[in-house]
């Protein structure tokens, strides 16, 4: 187990380093000059050159890279080219918003998706199954920004239960008002994925010999489903949840924009539009870290769900 963790952390470091280098090069290959974008279109080239010098963008690519890596090793991610505020601070300002939204929508997805998937599998080709399959197909086909607008039109404009601007969290009531629609929006889409994966995994497991044996032994149907069936069907579900967590953070950008919530997604889009190199680099580290950590947790969860999985 310890050896496994050490090795995985080693891999993580290599991945991180590779991603950093790639991002560093990629953002600079894309046309677009941060100094120009910062100063606006009335600035003369002399003024722009002066700013490029001040930002260190006139140095050679290799020089910029060594400065960047040296800083990164010290834990210094620099300051945003555009706002002049520290990258770490900017990220930490909005990170809780993204984490909260992601985890809550994942929870909604699991709470709805797993039971629905199990129910659909158990009552295969009956009403529940058809309903679950149609509902999940709908969930998968809706782009998040369309469903977000529909939620706003229904619950914020017609019913007036929630605000359109979901950016307050001073009191619990405000927090609840702000998180519900965005979390529901992403949660329902996540639920759609989880329902379908759970259903197909369960269908496979329910046809296994040990399920038939358990039933023949007279084990109650309920216990067969939850203890023998679901437990064994969990591995693909965990895989999907793990993969989806990474996707969810990426997907949250449209939800953040439509619901006017702060978040990492908005930060990265803004940084990209402004060619804020330092910001993009910092953000990529965070994203990579999240994906690496989630993958690690997924692997550990396999072991818990199925003790036969040995972590080596």
């Amino acid at each position, binding site marked *: 187990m310890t050896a496994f963790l050490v090795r995985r952390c080693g891999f993580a470091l290599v991945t991180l380093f590779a991603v950093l280098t790639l991002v560093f090069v990629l953002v600079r290959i*894309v*046309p*677009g*000059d941060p100094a*120009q*974008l*910062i*100063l*606006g*279109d*009335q*600035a*003369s*080239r*002399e*003024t722009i*050159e*002066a*700013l490029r010098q*001040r930002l260190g963008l006139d140095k050679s690519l290799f020089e910029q890279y060594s400065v960047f890596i040296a800083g990164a090793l010290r834990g210094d991610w620099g300051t945003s080219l*555009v*706002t*002049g*505020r520290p990258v770490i601070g*900017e990220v930490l*300002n*909005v990170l809780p918003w993204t984490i909260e939204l992601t985890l809550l929508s994942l929870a909604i997805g699991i709470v709805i998706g797993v039971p629905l998937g199990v129910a659909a599998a158990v009552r295969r080709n009956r009403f529940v199954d058809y309903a679950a399959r149609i509902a999940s197909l709908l969930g998968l086909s809706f782009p998040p920004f369309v469903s977000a*607008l529909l939620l*706003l*039109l229904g619950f*914020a*404009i017609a019913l*007036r239960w929630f*605000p*359109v*601007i979901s*950016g307050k969290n001073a009191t619990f009531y405000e927090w609840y008002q702000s998180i519900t629609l965005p979390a529901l929006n992403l949660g329902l889409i996540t639920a759609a994925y989880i329902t379908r994966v759970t259903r197909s995994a369960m269908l496979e497991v329910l046809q296994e010999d040990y399920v038939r044996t358990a039933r023949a032994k007279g084990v109650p149907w309920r216990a067969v489903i939850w203890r023998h069936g679901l437990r064994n069907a969990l591995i693909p579900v965990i895989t999907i949840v793990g993969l989806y967590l990474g996707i969810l953070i990426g997907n949250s950008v449209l939800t953040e*924009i*439509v*619901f*006017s919530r*702060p*978040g990492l997604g*908005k*930060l990265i*889009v*803004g940084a990209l*539009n*402004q*060619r804020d190199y330092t910001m993009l680099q910092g953000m990529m580290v965070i994203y990579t870290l999240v994906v690496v950590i989630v993958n690690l947790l997924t692997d550990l969860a396999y072991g818990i769900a199925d003790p036969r999985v040995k972590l080596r």
Partner: protein
Amino acid sequence: MTKKWILGLAFAGLVAAGPALAQKKSLVIGMGSADAGKLDPHLASTTPDKGLLNYVFNGLVRIKPGEASPNFIEPDLAESWTQNANGSEWIFKIRAGVQCHHGFGPFTAEDAAYSLKRAATKATSSYSGDFSAVDKIDVVDPSTLKITLKTPVAGFLGYVANINGGNMVCRKAAEEAGDNFGKRPIGTGPFMFAEYQPQQFVKLVANKQYFRGAPQLDDITFRYIPADSSRDLAFQSGELDMIYGKQDQTWVDRTAKLPGVKVKAMEPGELSALYLNVTAKPLDDIRVRQAIAHAIDRKAIVQFKGEGSSREAVSVVPSGYLGTDQKSALYAYDIAKARQLLTQAGYPNGVTVKTIHTTLTGMQTLIEAVQAQLKKAGITLDIELVEHATFHANIRKDLSPIVHYQAARFPVADVYLTQFYDSNSIVGKPTAVTNFTHCDVADADIRGARTETDAARQLALWKAAQEKLVKNVCGIPIYEQLQLWAWKDTLDLGYELNGSLNLSPPITEKTRFTK
């Protein structure tokens, strides 16, 4: 009897006090961007940042709230001013008793001089170029400022007005904050910076000591809501009192139908024009450029863009600027003529020209309409769509023979002419700004007008420059896009809104809610 009277009076008082107590004192504005940029007035270059800072800062002079033309210049931090005969020496009398925000002390000529020098320094200002003609800035005494220019400057007062580098910062605050001034901008305006929440809002509170009187509003929340539809919905649900509109006519039509809402298309108009590189084939042949100019139907474009929010261009300088030739001889829409010119130029079977274009929606729909119009004359416009920042980078590398650009500038002809048509501004040169045409035909007139002190002769030179630029088809002006805003009709701005150079309606000490 007396008792009844008193009771009656008390009741009347209650009735009167009721609405007064309920009166809204907080204004919430919805702006179409994801976050604040630089909240330092000398560095801010985006519409959202400039609009917000306009509520916080004053200039030595200002353009009357609600107007967008230098004809409306009036005193601001300077009570009065004088200039010598040729306009190279300006003396400003600074208003007494003006206080800087958050207890940074009185605003004096020292602050004014510091602020102008800061705005003229490359390291601290995006607008240093505007002050290149400034020779000396002297503090004569705490209430007198003297500015000496190397050469007279057309419309000099515009550079010390409440926009861009003319915004007056308080010396002590700016020196203490250094590079961090944008985190807590300190000025003298009706509202003071209070709080910034990333990606959410900036909150301003009333400056009770404001020299024109304490503001009627208590605070302004300037919210960043990038999605047009979310901004509209939040306005509809009453969470926002004023919004930056989606810049197209369908938005105007839809929003104007909402109850209790005012919609305004205000000045300045952003001029949308094609800039043709006269050194690139086949555009180096004037007949090809003329053919393109003849093939564009400006009237149809305005119908397409919406009559309420756009208007036909009148010249290579936007209409209403000091020095605009309001009746310049633009090429008339004439497809037959265009085809004939192409044939003469040796392209009887039509010609293909390329443009690199941004994916910004409003601009993209225009270039697609132009593409359809040009097609009728046998001109194929090859549009290469790229994302906005790439567009800005590539057009400055001369990669796009035709550049479609949309912009408003300080409303003096000199600014537009210098940036887009002076040969010093040609992209690629060290002094480059936005001359994509490589034209130099109007250099003498543009430069002559810049230092001409006789107003009539100056106007004549500007007119001559525009005539040459139109005739040589360096630029093809198409239409002007006005700035679209909406607000609740219970909000009384306190002035008549015709326009704003900061592109956002000013919020002044007189702005209030009537309910």
